[in-house]
């Protein structure tokens, strides 16, 4: 392609407007989904199924990952703390890292890869095989019947998964720190108990994972709902879900961290 300034400008303009267009579509879609959320609460059975597929089936990957992340944190944390002679603070370091940051963020990233991608592929294929159209023609709103339960399942699952991730991580750190390295058991737990604050650390961590749940859930149903109804279209949509969700989680985490933790002490 010739790089004359006019065509460069045109393609730049096209890139910007098409992205803005998609953002507008996503906003309208989100609005439409929020409007039908109330209906879904009346039929909680629909959400239970999605909670099982998205949440329960993600348990193993989240707990195992949490365990490993906790172990790694313990090894790395011990190396540094040793220099300052304060190895008993290992429990605090690990717990704060997990509850404030790694729990919500890593479990959201894992959730995007494990559950959201599956949701996008499922909805995309339902669209490609006219299942959503058939539902719509049967006077059943696909937004309420298919989209909203999957969206809500992400919001409900993520805080719980993040909590389990953090708990598994603390256990992992305990195995490495206390059992293998030999830090004092009592100091490990009591320092953690004294330094982890419910409001500042736990509540903020849970808030983060709720926000991540909204973002990841919305991205996965949006990409599936508007997937081009071909094999290639569904695969592109699935990839986009994972990439966009991951970036959104990391960006939101930065914003939330600044809002929540800047200026503490």
């Amino acid at each position, binding site marked *: 392609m010739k790089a004359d300034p006019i065509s460069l400008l045109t393609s730049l303009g096209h890139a910007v407007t098409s992205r803005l267009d998609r953002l507008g579509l996503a906003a309208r879609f989100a609005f439409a989904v929020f409007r039908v959320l109330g209906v879904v609460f009346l039929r909680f059975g629909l959400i239970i199924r999605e909670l099982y597929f998205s949440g329960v089936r993600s348990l193993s990957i989240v707990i195992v990952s949490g365990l490993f992340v906790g172990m790694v944190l313990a090894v790395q944390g011990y190396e540094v703390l040793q220099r300052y002679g304060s190895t008993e603070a290992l429990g605090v370091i690990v717990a704060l890292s997990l509850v404030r940051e790694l729990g919500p963020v890593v479990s959201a990233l894992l959730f995007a890869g494990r559950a959201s991608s599956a949701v996008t592929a499922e909805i995309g294929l339902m669209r490609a095989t006219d299942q959503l159209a*058939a539902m719509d023609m049967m006077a059943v709103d696909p937004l309420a019947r298919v989209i909203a339960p999957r969206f809500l399942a992400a919001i409900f699952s993520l805080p719980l998964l993040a909590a389990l991730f953090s708990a598994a991580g603390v256990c992992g750190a305990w195995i490495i720190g206390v059992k293998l390295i030999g830090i004092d058991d009592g100091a490990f737990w009591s320092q953690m108990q004294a330094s982890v604050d419910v409001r500042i650390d736990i509540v903020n961590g849970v808030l983060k994972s709720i926000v991540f749940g909204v973002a990841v859930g919305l991205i996965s149903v949006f990409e599936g709902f508007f997937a081009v109804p071909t094999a290639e279209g569904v695969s592109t949509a699935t990839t986009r879900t994972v990439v966009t969700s991951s970036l959104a989680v990391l960006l939101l985490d930065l914003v939330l961290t600044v809002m929540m933790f800047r200026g503490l002490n």
Partner: protein
Amino acid sequence: MSERQDIIRIENVRFAYGERTILDDLSLTIRRGEIVAIMGASGGGKTTLLGLIGGRLTPSVGRVFVEDQNVPTLSKSALYALRRRIGMLFQFGALFTDLSVFENVAFPYREQTDLSEDMIRTLVLMKLEAVGLRGAAHLMPSELSGGMARRVALARAVTLDPSIMLYDEPFTGLDPISVGIIGRLIKRLNAALGMTSIIVTHDLNETLRLADRVVVLSAGKVYCDLAPDDIRVSTDPFIRQFADGLPDGPVPFHYPARDYVGDLLAS
């Protein structure tokens, strides 16, 4: 309401996807109880027409009356109320792949009615019996052949006893036996349930056996609107090309292109 009343009235409808005009000033009236086949070249707007009748698409110009309601102007709730009286069979059935055959047919009852579980079971088995698949109630859609899936989808489409049935290429991809079965079911259901059926199809033989009227679309308009017998004896070149499956004729074999020799020799 009289028996011969118009149930669907399409008036001067224009529909376009972007720059590409699909339907242009099309008008068509369908009477209660009829089986009308819509034929025409692929991409000629047949499926679009079903979309307009079902309210899934909105025309840029014109009005679409179904049971005296102008579909494009209906609110979502009014449209959904109308759709409860319209059944649609999609091209490949569009069965819900995560539900069994039984649950697929039960779906409209569960979503639209407050019937008891016993009642739903009875009704579903009756619908499945009508399409000969009561024994397959426990199977999943992935375990069905194409013809069986189409029959289950047909049973699901008529669960709420619609007054209008829309069929989008019901015979595509089926073996001759299945085509015959589906054709006979369409005819029987239409008579038994007092429905009006609109069938978009390419299968001329089955259509001529089945339909009361054949509407051929061309260039976004109704090209002709004839009884099956008139189609058989028609000498119109377009209809003959269609009926005899000739590759070239008024519908050209070649997609518009520049001169062949010039194209090959172009560097």
